[in-house]
């Protein structure tokens, strides 16, 4: 009796979380009403699906792919061709379901390329996906009818055939279309992790040898997971095509594949909601940072390297580590250490930003001696003094972080000890 009650409680809890997710997506356009933020939030939705589909490989099945944009991009191309066909009157299919065309394209190519690449695991798999990604990208020169050559393929998303009577001309309507698909795809991918397939994928990731001994075919598990991941990537690509109404060859390319790897990893591969955080954060930083800094790729690269070295679980991993002390009521004991680390960390970041921005000013600006705005100050990149100050701030910040890290570690050891002690008592 009590067991079924807790099961029902867990189910309600899950439904509640997803309902909240949908509610947030529905309410956001009323809070951020400007057209640029609507466009940014639409992109976030697309990349949430894309990053979640990528995490079906990296997080769920331990497959590191460098060519996931193939399925995303091809899905987008298929969708755009389908929309053009509808506009030409050759075919009739509602726009709301168009991402399914992309999904079908992604699935088809996921099956084709997956049957080649999933025979291997680990580093070899990574290299095969890289090769396939490069192959598809360079084949855009050959199949100019499909890829549209240099200028790409463009279309008009406003078709006469829709389910709900919206025209999908205004970007808010596209936002809600993307939002709806984001919820559907995210729930579907979440449910997939609860199926036997999801569990076997986890087993194949953690201990392929043992999974084989138990009697599972690891290749087939990887293959199914890979194909389904291609399906969801294709849906994301289809939404991308609907939103931008243009697809070009780089959309299937290595840069796009790298971007999804970056956002998934920064968000966190170990937890289901990790890639959602990553997609939102990276899209936000991309739109916000690329506006006023040349160096946003450098900042991303540094953030990524930092995370690989010190937080391999990503942002979600860092959050989850604190769940146990939170439940045990010890979280407040960690706070002083964090506050202590915060000040030098901000100093180090400020120093780094100053060094990078001054470097870009020296190498890229038309007139390097023209002052740049940094932290509400006017800084001259050609003066030695400003470099010395920036490097000093950076050095002091790093030294402070290293010192504070010791305090944080000591606090953690304390908290762990008391949690173990209380765990032993109960």
């Amino acid at each position, binding site marked *: 009796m009590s067991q079924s009650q807790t099961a029902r409680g867990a189910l309600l809890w899950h439904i509640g979380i997803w309902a909240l997710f949908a509610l947030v997506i529905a309410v956001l356009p009323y809070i951020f009403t400007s057209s640029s933020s609507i466009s940014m939030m639409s992109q976030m939705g697309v990349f949430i699906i894309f990053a979640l589909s990528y995490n079906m490989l990296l997080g769920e099945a*331990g497959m*590191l792919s*460098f060519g996931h944009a193939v399925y995303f991009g091809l899905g987008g191309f298929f969708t755009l061709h389908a929309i053009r066909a509808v506009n030409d009157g050759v075919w009739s299919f509602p726009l709301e379901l168009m991402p399914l065309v992309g999904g079908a394209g992604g699935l088809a190519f996921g099956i084709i390329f997956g049957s*080649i*690449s999933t*025979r*291997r*695991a*680990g*580093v*070899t798999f*990574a*290299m*095969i996906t*890289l*090769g*396939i990604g*490069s*192959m598809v990208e*360079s*084949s855009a*020169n*050959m199949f100019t*009818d499909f890829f549209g050559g240099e200028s790409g393929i463009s279309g008009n998303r406003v078709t006469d055939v829709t389910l709900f009577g919206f025209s999908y001309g205004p970007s808010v309507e596209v936002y809600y279309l993307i939002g709806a698909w984001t919820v559907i795809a995210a729930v579907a991918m979440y449910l997939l992790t609860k199926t036997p397939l999801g569990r076997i994928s986890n087993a194949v990731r953690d201990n392929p040898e043992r999974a084989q001994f138990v009697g599972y075919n690891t290749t087939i598990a990887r293959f199914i997971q890979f194909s389904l991941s291609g399906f969801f990537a294709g849906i994301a690509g289809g939404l991308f095509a609907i939103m931008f109404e243009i697809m070009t060859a780089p959309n299937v390319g*290595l840069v796009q594949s*790298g971007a999804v*790897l970056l956002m998934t*990893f920064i968000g966190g591969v170990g937890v289901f909601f990790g890639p959602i955080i990553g997609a939102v954060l990276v899209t936000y930083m991309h739109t916000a940072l690329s506006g006023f800094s040349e*160096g946003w*790729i*450098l900042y*991303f*690269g*540094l953030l*990524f*390297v930092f995370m*690989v*070295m010190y937080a*391999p679980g990503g942002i979600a991993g860092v959050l989850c580590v604190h769940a146990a002390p939170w439940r045990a009521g010890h979280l407040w004991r960690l706070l002083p250490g964090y506050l202590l680390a915060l000040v030098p960390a901000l100093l180090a970041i400020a120093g780094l930003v100053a060094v*990078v921005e001054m*470097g*870009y000013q020296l*190498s*890229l600006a038309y007139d390097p001696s023209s002052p740049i705005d940094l932290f509400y100050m006017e800084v001259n990149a050609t003066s030695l003094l400003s470099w010395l100050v920036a490097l000093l701030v950076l050095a002091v910040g790093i030294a402070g972080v290293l010192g504070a890290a010791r305090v944080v570690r000591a606090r953690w050891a304390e908290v762990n000890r008391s949690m173990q002690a209380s765990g032993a008592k109960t």
Partner: protein
Amino acid sequence: MLESIVFSVLNGLLYGMLLFMLASGLTLIFGMMGVLNFAHASFYMLGAYCAYTISSYTNFWVALIVAPLFVGFLGALTERFGLRNVHKHGHVAELLLTFGLVYVIDELVVLIWGQIPVDYAIPPSLDFTLFTLFGTSFPAYRGFILCVAILMFVAIYGLLVRTRVGMIIRAALSHPEMVGALGHDVPRIFTLVFAFGTGLAGLAGVMAGNYYITEPGMAFSMGPIVFVVVVFGGLGSLGGALAASLIIGLVTTFAVSLNYSIADLLAGIGLTLGNESIVGGLAHIDLSRIGQMLPYLMMVLILIFRPRGLMGARES
């Protein structure tokens, strides 16, 4: 016709040897440490840019020695303070770290040297015609690249197979505990191997930077193809890397220089094909347009039919 074939062979060999200079370092690092250095082409670019800066203060010959050493030093730092820390998380974490380094290094190059190509020129002492064939000249610098690449292969091979140092390095991969127990510092061996491999990439950059163009996109244009070479030749196999480099160098050079399509070939034996159907459309694509994608296609094919590559010892 003969003229174009001879020069395609020479240029293909040259391109192949340049690929080999890059691939040898990559396959060495992989063979010895099991680390796939994604940033290998970025170190190659660093080599070219360092050579440019050094040669602008001194001359090319100093840069030829100093730039690879400097790039190797940077590689050692990368291994010591980066890779060694994530080693415990496994090879995928190491791969991810080097992947992140690609972004960092490529952007740092823009930060230091700017977005436009730098003027890294062939040294005047090598800027003459080696020989003239069918009225087309063959520059001496290309001959120099070939010589250096061949010397490099002989030197690496001799070092690994014929010397005691090479023996210890090879043992450190398969039996790190035993080598450690015999009193060798295994982590330091790994650092040295990584430094050596990245140094080789730096050398390739010094040689190729003035032959091609030294610009921030050079790593990205070379990176994927080097991976293809290493997989095609067999991961960790030096001889395989040499064979694969030459094959891919020749194939791509020939594909670019031959402006024929399958349809032309069929027309030669009396068959005409319209380009309305899919097969016909495919047959009408020029070989030069397929050329870019051929290496990747070859890699996918070899992975299907011979997963360990041309001369690889094991599958992964």
